[in-house]
Every structure is written in structure tokens, then in C-alpha cells.
């Protein structure tokens, strides 16, 4: 019995070494860079489209960790990522001022849209502004699903309610604490309104009966920025490599690649590096 046990252990360990060797030998020691980003850039497929050409050219492996913006910023502050691609410009600038990040640049923007059931119970469609659209939802007390996860999208949504001087009531305002895809599914199931980035909505629209009911207000633009973790705080992070990737994002090559990313026929992210 004991021998059998030892045998299993050995077998397992042998297996494990095999696996770890496999992963180690894959490439000739490329620089590994950890990019913390939001679910929207990853789930839309943008990074999968952009990064391979960059990785090959510079012999780097970009390890992408996709999270809510809140968690991504926290990871960066702790020095657990090398570079961030997020969309919460006000917070980003604050954190740069506090010395957590350096070399921040605008990269691109996409826009948010208000989606909801095709029946549009609050008659959001045709609203003159995003303020009016939200006011219509609040007045009808139509169910609204919020990301509620401190992500860039959630922060944007909170700012929009504030700008419209509306304090959402718990009776119709649901804080999901979930990613964009989960929130869209919840909105679909519960025939509710929600604020979503266009990319995620377009990527998943065939599965839902949700329709874009309001779009186009300048307040709905969603600025993405890239920035490196401050190497003064963490000397052993991959700052040099992070700079190369930042330069790629804002180069004409990178910007053209972003504009050319059209998985559903339309441009999803509009490059606007300074």
C-alpha cells in the first residue's frame, strides 16, 4: 500500500516536471512583461490582435491580466504589474500625480452606450442628452443594472448619474458586482437597462435581446490610457520593456493597428494618442 502511494507521488512529480519543462523551453528567453488591463480590451479581442506582432518584433512576451480597472490600478500600485492599459482618466492622472505611475499617454477611446430591452419601457430612445436618458429611467423607476465593481465603466456610470443630479434608488437600481459580460446577461435576463462599452455589447449582441437605446453624447466617450509603474518605487520591474510597449501603442504603427481592428465591421476603438 505504501509503495503504491510513493509510486503515485513519483508519477505526479515526474509529470509536473514534464509540464514545467515544456512551458520553459517554449521561447528563447524573451523579456516577460505583465500588462494589467480591463476586461474590455481583452474580451473584445483587441489585444490578441495587436500584441503578437509586437511580441515578435521585440522578442517580448506580454502576459495579459485582465481585471476590473479598480483591481488593475491596485496591482500597479503594488508593483505587481509593469504596465497598465485602463480607462479611468481622472483616477489615472491622480495616481500619476501621487507618484505611482509614469509616462501616461492617451491611446484611444471607445464609447459607452445605454442598452435596454427592445420594449424600452422608460422611452429612453430619442432622448436629447444622456442626462435626459438617465432621468427617463429614474422617473419610470425602470430597473437598471450597474456593474458595481469599481471598474472604469462603473466609475463612468456613477459620474453620469451625478452629472444628471440623480441619486438612484435601491428599489430599481441593482449593483451587480460583475464584469461587463455578466452584467449584460443580467440586464437581458431581467429586462433592464445598463451602461456598456460598445465593444463588449457588439461582441455579444447576438445572444441578447438588448438594443442600443441611447448613444452619441460626448460625455459617453471612454478614454483609454497607458502608463508604466513608477520604477523609482519598484526598481526591479520591467520599466524599459514597458516603455517600448507604451511607444508601440502611441506610434503610428500601433495607432493604425487599433483603427484597423474591426471584428464586427465597425471600428471599436478610435486611436487618439497625443
Amino acid at each position, binding site marked *: 500500500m505504501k509503495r503504491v502511494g510513493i509510486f503515485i*507521488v513519483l508519477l505526479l*512529480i515526474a509529470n509536473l516536471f514534464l*509540464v*514545467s519543462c515544456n512551458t520553459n523551453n517554449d521561447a528563447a528567453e524573451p523579456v516577460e512583461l505583465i500588462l494589467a488591463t480591463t476586461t474590455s480590451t481583452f474580451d473584445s479581442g483587441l489585444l490578441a490582435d495587436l500584441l503578437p506582432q509586437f511580441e515578435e518584433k521585440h522578442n517580448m512576451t506580454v502576459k495579459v491580466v485582465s481585471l476590473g480597472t479598480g483591481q488593475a490600478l491596485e496591482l500597479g500600485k*503594488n508593483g*505587481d504589474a509593469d504596465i497598465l492599459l485602463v480607462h479611468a482618466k481622472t483616477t489615472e492622472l491622480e495616481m500619476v500625480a501621487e507618484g505611482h505611475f509614469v509616462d501616461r499617454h492617451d491611446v484611444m477611446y471607445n464609447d459607452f452606450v445605454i442598452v435596454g430591452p427592445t420594449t424600452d419601457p422608460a422611452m429612453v430612445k430619442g432622448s436629447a442628452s444622456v442626462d435626459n436618458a438617465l432621468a427617463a429611467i429614474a422617473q419610470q423607476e425602470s430597473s437598471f443594472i450597474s456593474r458595481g465593481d469599481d471598474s472604469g465603466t462603473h466609475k463612468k456610470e456613477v459620474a453620469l448619474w451625478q452629472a444628471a443630479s440623480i441619486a438612484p434608488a435601491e428599489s430599481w437600481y441593482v449593483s451587480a458586482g460583475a464584469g461587463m*459580460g455578466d452584467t449584460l446577461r443580467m440586464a437581458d435576463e431581467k429586462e433592464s437597462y445598463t451602461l456598456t462599452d460598445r465593444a463588449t455589447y457588439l461582441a455579444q449582441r447576438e445572444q441578447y435581446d438588448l438594443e442600443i437605446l441611447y448613444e452619441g453624447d460626448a460625455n459617453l466617450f471612454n478614454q483609454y490610457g497607458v502608463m508604466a509603474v513608477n520604477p523609482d518605487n519598484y526598481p526591479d520591474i520591467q520599466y524599459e520593456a514597458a516603455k517600448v510597449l507604451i511607444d508601440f501603442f502611441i506610434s503610428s504603427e500601433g495607432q493604425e493597428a487599433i483603427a484597423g481592428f474591426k471584428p464586427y465591421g465597425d471600428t471599436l476603438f478610435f486611436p487618439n494618442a497625443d
Partner: protein
Amino acid sequence: MGGLTQIILLTLYVSGSAVVLAALLGVPAGTWLGLQPKANVRGLTQLIYTLMGLPPVVGGLLIYLLISRKGPLGFMGVLFTPSAMIMAQFLLATPIIIGLTSTSVRAKGTEVVDTLQSLGAENKLILRTIMQESRFGIFAAVIAGFGRVIAEVGAVMMVGGNIENHTRVMTTAIVLEVRQGNFSFALTLGLILLIISFVINAGLYRLQAGGRDE
């Protein structure tokens, strides 16, 4: 398909290593715990039982704080690597293996100890006999530990980061597919995970049952 194979191998690597390490610590610790007089280890036992219910994401958060660059073990630089995932799953599996081992040892223990001591056996032999006698329960403890870690997602997501080709395992891949709305593929992955669990458990069960026939 290559990606899927890698995900499966990594899942087995991470959960397998975590359980082997947890068993190396948990089986002796559980045996020791099971042999102590009940009254002496009441508090410790209750602590272990409580930790058996540690939410995986909390286990993951604890490990994250430990290995974050800011944390006490930050210098190791293991965050977002399979090693970090093994650490987190080790933390989850160990209390289960200790707890269940101690229960089964306690069930057999005192009787065996008394008998052997009256026959004048050495401590070493006593210990060996007890582990031999409790092997079904110990096996069950290890299987339960394995079931817990191969199914959990919160901890490996937190400290592994679900990085493609590096730290993506079955459960985090499933979460990703659900998030992207690919329900049918997510379900397929879930089915594959269940089949893998079944094969492994069937193997362990054969070993366990095989002992009985001897």
C-alpha cells in the same frame, strides 16, 4: 487544441502538486492530531474544521498579500506564476486533509494503540499500523482535497491572473468563456473537467478498494 491540452496539463500540474504537498504535510499532521486526547486539541481541531471552509478567494487574497511585490515574500517574484497557484491551492487543501485524516485516525486510533502497547510494540510500528489501518479514510481525505482544489476558481484567478499559455487552468478558462458569452464552449470545458476528475478519482478509488481485497 494545443491551447486546451496545455490548460489541462497545467490544471493537473497545479492541483496535483498542491494536493501532493498538502498530503505530505496534512497526513502526518492529521495523524498526530487524531492521536492526541480529544480534550487537549479541541481548539486546534475547531480551527482546522473552520479553515476547511475557507472561501477560495479569501485564500487567494491571503496568498496575494503574501507574495505581492509589497508583501513579505514579494522578493520571490512568484505572483502570476503556477507556483503562486500551487501555494494558494495548498492553503485550501491542507486543512481538509488534516481534518479528515484526523477524524479517520481517531476512529481507529485508540483501539490500535492500546492493543499494540499492551503487546509491547515500538512507537514506530504503532504509527505505521495506525496509518495502515486508517488508509481508506486517509485516501478519502486526499481525494476530498483534490476535489476541492481542482474545482475552485477564486484563488487561482486571484494569484494566477488567468494569463493565456501561462496560468490559465480549466476553471479560469471557463469563467473567461462565460464572461465572453461562449456558454456552449464553457459547458464543454466543464464537461472535460468533470471527466478528468472522474478518471483520476476512479484511479484513486481502485487503489483504495484494492487495499481491501488484499
